[in-house]
């Protein structure tokens, strides 16, 4: 893990974004100074490297940095800029927001008045029904994107509907899904949410084919893995969109990808999403805001500007494990979207690290003690 010898680089510089943080990848055993020579009392008593690591983690750690929302620099601080900013606030809240809410309402009316008949009347004719529902879901997503004045630039070839392929993308907010969905109706795997979002999930998203998981259930992983496999093998199903990070990250870092998407025996098509922070910070910090508040924040900002890159499809290479495959794809996405990679599992937001990390450190120290005991 991060054996950074106590010197953690400050993370605020934009210039650092594209350079990989190599310190994060030093395996904990291979410290820069390999102690050798006969074992003395001071070698056992000198716990300064381990203490330094602990203090370094207390002062700054790469995991917490992934989930820090970065507020924009305030620019309204002098007597000329402040009224301009006030005018901007008034414009955004009093003019833009009602307009957008109107657009969204119209969109919902159109959508529901088409979707409900299609869903019930065409019950017999599945192929046509599915096709129409797909188009309608793409439509309502476009309305959503319009309601934030979303300016999305898509790069790369559009996803094609082929069997045995899955799409993976980095995850910043639930709006990632909406932005991608307006272009192609993906099936998605998501955490089931409470409230109106959950309602939408169970009704409308069911029509494009969705898989639910529950982070808190231990057995859930196997069930979900099976569902993923079944879905990806089916020829008629919409292509699956998976966010392998498993949680929302702040669009400056990427956490470890879960291997579930990479062991399905399918082609993996990476998608990189990068939001332009100048307009709005699209990171959804689910600990701080509900999704409703997050949407309202987006609807009262100037715009949501982002780039979406559809990258070259990847296959498992001979001799490559799914975990290596996942890391390789994460690398491709992180480089494209300018994200710094950290070696942490996103689920550490909800649980403690497994004891094997600590055991690895203990093992390397124990081995060095025993080895030096032999030396004369």
């Amino acid at each position, binding site marked *: *893990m991060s054996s950074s010898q106590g010197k*953690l*680089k400050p993370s605020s510089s934009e210039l650092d974004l594209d350079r990989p943080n190599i310190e994060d990848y030093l395996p904990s055993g291979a410290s820069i100074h390999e102690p050798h020579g006969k074992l003395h009392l001071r070698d056992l008593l000198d716990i*300064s490297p381990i203490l330094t*690591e*602990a*203090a370094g983690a207390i002062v700054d750690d790469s995991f917490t940095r992934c989930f820090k929302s970065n507020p924009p620099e305030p620019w309204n601080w002098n007597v000329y800029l402040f009224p301009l900013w006030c005018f901007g606030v008034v414009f955004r809240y009093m003019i833009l927001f009602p307009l957008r809410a109107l657009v969204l309402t119209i969109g919902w009316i159109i959508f529901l008045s088409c979707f409900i008949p299609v869903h019930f009347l065409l019950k017999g004719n599945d192929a046509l029904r599915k096709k129409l529902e797909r188009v309608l879901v793409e439509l309502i997503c476009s309305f959503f994107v319009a309601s934030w004045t979303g300016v999305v630039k898509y790069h790369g070839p559009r996803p094609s509907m082929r069997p045995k392929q899955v799409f993976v993308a980095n995850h910043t907010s639930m709006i990632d899904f909406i932005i991608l969905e307006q272009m192609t109706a993906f099936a998605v795997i998501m955490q089931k949410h409470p409230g109106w979002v959950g309602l939408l999930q169970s009704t409308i998203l069911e029509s494009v084919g969705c898989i639910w998981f529950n982070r808190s259930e231990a057995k859930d992983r196997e069930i979900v893995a099976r569902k993923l496999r079944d879905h990806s093998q089916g020829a008629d199903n919409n292509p699956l969109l998976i966010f392998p990070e498993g949680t929302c990250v702040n669009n400056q870092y990427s956490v470890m990808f879960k291997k579930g998407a990479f062991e399905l025996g399918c082609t993996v098509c990476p998608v990189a999403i990068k939001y332009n922070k100048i307009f709005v910070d699209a990171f959804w910090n689910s600990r701080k805001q509900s999704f409703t508040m997050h949407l309202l924040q987006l609807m009262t900002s100037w715009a949501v500007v982002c780039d979406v890159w559809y990258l070259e499809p990847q296959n498992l290479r001979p001799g490559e494990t799914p975990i290596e495959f996942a890391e390789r794809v994460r690398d491709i996405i992180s480089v494209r979207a300018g994200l710094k990679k950290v070696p942490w599992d996103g689920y550490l937001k909800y649980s403690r690290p497994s004891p094997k990390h*600590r055991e690895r450190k203990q093992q390397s120290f124990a081995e060095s003690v025993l080895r030096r005991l032999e030396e004369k």
Partner: protein
Amino acid sequence: MGNSSSMLTQYDIEEVQQHCNNAFSQQEIVSLYERFCQLDRSGGGFVSAEEFLSVPEFAVNPLSQRLLRMVDGLNFKEFVAFLSAFSPRATLQQKIEFIFKVYDSDGNGKVTFNDMLDVLRDLTGQFISEKQRTQVLTQVLEEAGYTKESLLVLSDFVKILGSSGLKMEVEVPVD
């Protein structure tokens, strides 16, 4: 300061600086305060053990439990004083004192054989047998002129560690 407001006054900063013997610059103290507030999610004015353990890099450290005992429930001023041993401005004496305190868990100024064995156990886990650990510790102690029954005090630690070129520094990120 010491409560959930996120504003530090100049007076607060100077007070903290004095308390830690000028180990940190004023800018570093402001950064440390931001960090403290970030860790103190419940806003109680101190960081609980749970909140420290939610930093995975800290949780995987073999000495995390020992350090937790020292750092749990400290308010901001004490938190900075705790970290002052890791400042580049701290003296070798201060660093050795900190290490001594980690060993001396009951705080009576004396480190026993068992204290040292406990720390060694934290550091090596199940990868060395208890018998081997005792053996190794006894051996190096005797080589250094002590016995199993010796009670080490701070000056002993200074003697043992003073010449080893101790490196114990942490950089506080300043925006």
